[in-house]
């Protein structure tokens, strides 16, 4: 089971109401390489991955939900005081027509989240290579978001999230080596 803690993993601050930045950020909420995709991918793969890697997938998957909450907080804070006109000017008229200012799982272009973004192959190496690629793609997305953003408070949170992708990728790479080592041992018999 999971336990919710009423705090963010890292503080989220935004300088000003800025729905245009929110429109870009939603990529990491409901996009292909976003936090929802990451959490659901790892927490689903873990049932059939070797025991040595289950803990890692569980804890990284759980941390992704903490990151999802950070992104949601950023989007919420960037849009909460926006008028319908400001939403329209930011290219969010389509979003506003369907959701008002509620969050929704879609990417920056408005395409809704789909399970086709993720895979579970039942092959530990294939699954972990996908996970490493996912972390690297998310890291790149955070870099593009930082490049697009002119909000120093927001960028502090985005830089934190970018660094977490680096750590997750590193841990998944180590997991691959652990499994390769185990496979090597079995061949000795």
């Amino acid at each position, binding site marked *: *089971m999971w*336990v*919710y*803690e*009423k*705090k*963010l*993993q*890292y*503080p*989220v601050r935004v300088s000003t109401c800025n729905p245009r930045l929110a429109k870009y950020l939603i990529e990491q909420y409901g996009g292909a390489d976003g936090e929802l995709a990451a959490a659901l991918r790892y927490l689903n793969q873990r049932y059939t991955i070797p025991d040595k*890697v289950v*803990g*890692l997938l569980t*804890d*990284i998957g759980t*941390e992704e939900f903490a990151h999802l*909450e950070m992104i*949601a*907080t950023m989007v*919420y*804070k960037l849009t909460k005081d926006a008028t319908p006109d400001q939403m329209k000017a930011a290219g969010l008229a389509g979003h506003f027509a369907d959701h008002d200012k509620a969050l929704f799982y879609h990417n920056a272009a408005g395409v809704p989240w789909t399970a086709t973004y993720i895979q579970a192959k039942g092959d530990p190496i294939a699954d972990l290579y996908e996970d490493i690629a996912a972390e690297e793609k998310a890291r790149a997305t955070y870099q593009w978001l930082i490049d697009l953003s002119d909000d120093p408070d927001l960028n502090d949170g985005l830089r934190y999230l970018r660094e977490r992708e680096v*750590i*997750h990728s590193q*841990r998944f790479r*180590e*997991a691959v080596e*652990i499994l390769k080592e185990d496979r090597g041992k079995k061949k000795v018999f």
Partner: protein
Amino acid sequence: MKQLPPEYYTELEEIQAVDFVIVELVLYLHTHPDDLEAVKQYNEYVKLSKGLKKEFEKKYGALTSFGYSYARYPFDYKEAPWPWQV
């Protein structure tokens, strides 16, 4: 939502910093289970985190539900603000 004193933010950040060390160590330990120093450091920070949260919850209300925090009367889970509101 009631007005939060400035120390709410500093005390919350202290917890976030300690809990970050815990997350970082636990991910590391999944791939380095034989690192005794890391296990010791992990346990040290778990103790630190528990102490900080106990004090924080006394002031601002429970951080968790499902039996991980004691509840006061009247039920205080709604006392602490939601993370996106602060």
